[in-house]
């Protein structure tokens, strides 16, 4: 699993006032791998994803995506390069239908949207791929409901479906299982497993069972700093990780 790196992060740093949210962080993710980033609450995982996706600008450091320096690229341009993200706190178009949500993500990658006349809701070029993604996400029955009518679990599925709709080369997933029940979680794991290998994934997740079941490699963040990086076996055996993060109780079932 060590192909050429698709994402390279060099000496990334981000502060919020006195808080160091990202501390001289370097990371390489090989094309095709599923790379998990774990760490306690407030470790800087979401802040890292925000910088990778372009929502936040780092104070220093560089980010390369498939060879190009994207450190200062705006969010929409990164999305167009094939870097898609999902949000820890569900971020949807709640007043639009479920299908509209996904169709917008398709539309974003189907040329510019300065098209003023034709009914976009009747364009097969937008609706068909969107429906296909909904089928994969198990949401096809809900296509015509407003997104606000979905349950929390379905919101998480839609969150992922929107990231997938643009056929990205790399996914940045911020806790896709947050708040899911056991059944919904295992459905999400099945979905991620199906994606594994087809698209490079950076997975931030607190569900250790899922992380250790899915990840090719794991990076552990504490206070914005990488304290360990390696295969699941390496991480399980790493004393610093056990002490700083996994603890006895969680380490037990890992």
């Amino acid at each position: 699993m060590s192909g050429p790196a698709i994402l390279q992060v060099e000496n990334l740093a981000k502060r919020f006032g006195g808080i160091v949210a990202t501390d001289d962080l370097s990371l390489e993710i090989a094309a095709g791998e599923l790379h998990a980033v774990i760490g306690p609450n407030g470790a800087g995982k979401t802040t890292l994803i925000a910088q990778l996706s372009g929502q936040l600008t780092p104070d220093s450091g560089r980010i390369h995506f498939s060879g190009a320096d994207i450190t200062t690229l705006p969010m929409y341009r990164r999305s167009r390069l094939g870097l898609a993200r999902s949000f820890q706190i569900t971020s949807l178009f709640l007043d639009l239908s479920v299908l509209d949500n996904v169709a917008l993500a398709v539309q974003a990658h189907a040329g510019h949207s300065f098209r003023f006349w034709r009914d976009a809701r009747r364009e097969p070029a937008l609706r068909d791929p969107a429906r296909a993604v909904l089928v994969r996400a198990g949401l096809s029955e809900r296509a015509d409901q407003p997104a606000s009518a979905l349950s929390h679990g379905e919101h998480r599925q839609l969150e992922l479906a929107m990231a997938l709709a643009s056929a990205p080369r790399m996914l940045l997933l911020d806790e896709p299982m947050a708040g899911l029940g056991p059944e919904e979680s295992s459905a999400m794991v099945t979905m991620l497993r199906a994606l594994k290998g087809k698209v490079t994934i950076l997975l931030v997740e607190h569900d250790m069972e899922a992380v250790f079941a899915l990840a090719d490699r794991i990076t552990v963040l504490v206070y914005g700093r990488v304290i360990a990086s390696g295969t699941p076996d390496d991480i399980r055996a790493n004393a610093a990780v056990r002490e700083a993060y996994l603890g006895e109780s969680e380490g037990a079932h890992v």
Partner: protein
Amino acid sequence: MRPALNFRTIVTVVLIAALVLLPLYTGLSGNRFLLTLFTRIVIMALAAVSLNLMLGYGGMMSFGHAAYLGIGGYAVGILAHEGVLNGFVQWPVALAASALFALVIGALSLRTRGVYFIMITLAFAQMTYYTFAGLARYGGDDGLTIYKRSQFVAPIDLSNKTQFYYICLALLFGAIYLVWRLTNSRFGMAIQGARSNDIRMRAIGFPTYRYRLVCFVIAGTLCGLAGALLANQNDFVSPSIMYWTRSGDLIIMVVLGGMATPFGPVIGAVALLVLEEALSGITEYWQIILGPLLLLVVLFARGGIDGLLARADSKVRS
């Protein structure tokens, strides 16, 4: 499927029919005043439709939309004052000037959000107001009388009140159709997505600023057309056409009628201006009655009058 007959459709159809047939009634009864009033209502409805495009569909709360009424109106007034009476020159100039103006104001104000956006659009509109109030050559504060309405080719005669009314009405219907097509297009989906969740839009690959800006310019241009009509209707244009209370009236029309609905702003314009006219006939303290009435609609009828009708329909069905 929706039943074809419901309150919402009935009200819309009756309103359209009333607007189309109004000149017959005023012609028979000789009530010229009513025709003048409704010409103004139709023009303001056009302005409200343009605001609805950016406020209702685009989520951009401009508190300076009346500025484009002024730009469009003064384009006609100034050209007429300088001896250019040809409508085929005046109106395109009015549209182009409004578009350019909206492009500059939009480019600057769309960098802000929320209250700042409201304040900056208001500030630009007030600046425009004071600029025109200072133009001594064109009447300054007192405004500019337009001695001759825009001239078009043979059968078209804007001084014919009935004809002018129908031209305004046709432009209003045209604008509603335009906005309806726009909002269902890819462009419309993009601006509604940006209204709903701007960060997500950018995260999935939309440069939202550009789409908002184009929406802002289209809305401003359409309002400039309303301004050109209003100047012709009044045979006069003055800075008061773009005073901030006028921008407030436009917002009220959109909210009262129903935001992000194709026909809502027309309902809102008719309701507000007819009510204003009726109440001011009864008492000079009409604003004391109108204010709380508007408050009630905003508080208890989310979605405005159009939303109220839609809800009545779903109650009847269930």
